[in-house]
């Protein structure tokens, strides 16, 4: 089992504190869901964990080895980040997925037949194979999201950090995407940290939930009564409008109308 851990990460951006002494451990076989309001610092945390951003203090390590001093290529083989926005480029899906082998190529090398087969296997797993020759800018939001995931899987990294992968998906595709991720985490011994907005997705899929609120991170593992712990944690940010029903689902109640249970 491998572990990606953050130890007392502090990060300020333009003199504003974004992360304050944040600690987190992510193990292989775990799917951790990251919750937090807009601007809470979810993307920043994911970028710090992936090594793109260097924190002002604190340490991110992979099995006790700090990852920031590593070369980008070595880091990319351990941790892969799925960015929030996927570029509207005209390269085909296959070409886009193949870019994922970049950390394994030496200077002047281009993807070879083995890489092509590997890419096609991954694409088959994500039911992208029929789309392999379509340009990326002709795909729907869900298809682009899967293509981006395929590119992350191509790097064969142990840890996947996904920044709001369900943001542009309809309800069915959100569940399909997270089902897929759950099975990947279990079968391929990977660890995933996924930021989402819907706390119900966290209840459905997470092995533990990390809530980023007021620059602090609190991790709640799945256990009896964790819904109420979460409700409690989310209250300050949602000014008590987000309530957990007796059937353990979160509902939004506004002052104007009450949503029936």
């Amino acid at each position, binding site marked *: 089992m491998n572990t990606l851990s953050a130890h007392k990460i502090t990060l300020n951006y333009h003199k504003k504190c974004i992360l304050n002494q944040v600690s987190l451990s992510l193990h292989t076989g775990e799917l951790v869901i990251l919750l937090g309001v807009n601007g809470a610092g979810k993307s920043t945390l994911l970028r710090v964990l992936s090594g*793109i951003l260097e924190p002002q203090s604190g340490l991110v390590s992979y099995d006790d080895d700090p990852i920031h001093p590593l070369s980008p290529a070595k880091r990319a083989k351990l941790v892969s980040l799925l960015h929030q926005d996927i570029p509207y480029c005209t390269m085909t899906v296959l070409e886009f997925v193949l870019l994922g082998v970049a950390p394994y190529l030496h200077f002047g090398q281009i993807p070879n037949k083995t890489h092509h087969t590997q890419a096609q296997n991954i694409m088959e797993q994500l039911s992208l194979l029929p789309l392999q020759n379509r340009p990326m800018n002709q795909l729907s939001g869900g298809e682009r999201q899967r293509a981006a995931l395929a590119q992350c899987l191509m790097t064969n990294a142990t840890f996947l950090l996904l920044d709001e992968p369900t943001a542009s998906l309809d309800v069915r595709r959100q569940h399909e995407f997270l089902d897929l991720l759950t099975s990947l985490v279990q079968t391929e011994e990977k660890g995933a940290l996924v930021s989402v907005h819907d706390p119900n997705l966290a209840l459905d899929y997470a092995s533990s939930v990390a809530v980023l609120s007021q620059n602090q991170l609190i991790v709640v593992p799945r256990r009896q009564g964790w819904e109420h712990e979460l409700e409690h944690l989310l209250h300050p940010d949602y000014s008590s409008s987000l309530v957990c029903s007796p059937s353990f689902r979160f509902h939004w109640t506004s002052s104007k109308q009450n949503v029936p249970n």
Partner: protein
Amino acid sequence: MKKFIISLLILILLLLLSISVGRYALSLEELYSILIGNPPSDIAKDLFFQIRLPRVVTVALSGGVLALSGLVFQTVFSNPLVSPDVLGATNGCAVGAIFAMLFFPSFPLFSQLSAFLCGLISVIASLSLANFVKQNSLLGLILSGMVIGSLASAMLMILKYCADPMHQLPAIEYWLMGGFQNAVWDDVWSIFLCNALPLIFLYLFRFPLKVLSLGDERAISLGLSPLFIRRSAILLATILVASVISVAGMVSWVALIAPHLVRVCGARDITSNMGTVFCCGGSLLLLADLFARTLTTAEIPVSIFTSLFGASLLMVLLLCGILEHREVNV
């Protein structure tokens, strides 16, 4: 591959056409007999080997490397409207060449060398300034390029102001409009020798360049170092541009428009089409040079035609709305 073969055929056709057309026309049979070593006359042989051949080869090579440098600049800046001028390469070259023309007029080779070096120096200055500023990398680079480019153009104006208006100024203006009328075998060799290694390196860089076209953060998370790739690619592409400008003077538009032409012809991923872009640039410049030397009895500067072609092509693309639907893909 199909596109590359078609563009290569067009380039070869234009090469043959350029060799045969001119004040003294060479028919295809004459060309053939010269090539098999049985020239119809000594004049035809000298014309072919000493005048036409070095000129068309220089033109084709120059067009090709300019187009490739444009492709590289557009890729590393993730912007299809960028050309090598953006970091002050062309202005730097001009300062170098004109400085040598004014102060060392008796050494034509020195003017080439000084143009080449000044072009490189201005781009290195832009890169170092951007590094010093440590702004958002891409924006910082473009702004530094503007600073250095403006400095170079100020120096250019000072040099022009100091030049003798009867003899030196016309020569300077003529040089600034570009032309291949003086092309000899030495130019072919200097372009070839300067560019052989950079071209090989740029070809080897094609995969990282493709990754870089997705943006810096993505490139980092795919294990590359964008800063290193961008700087190396820019330096290599600058060598290409500077070597051409030092031989032929300013040749505008080819670098900007050739990659677009290839994109419009349906190349989805431009970094895998380096050969096609090279041939396309070569063909464009050959065509411009053909007009420049055959339209009137006097030689017309080649940049007049490249600018005309470029402007009309861009206008057609704009009017047909082709550019709008092709998002930045380099």
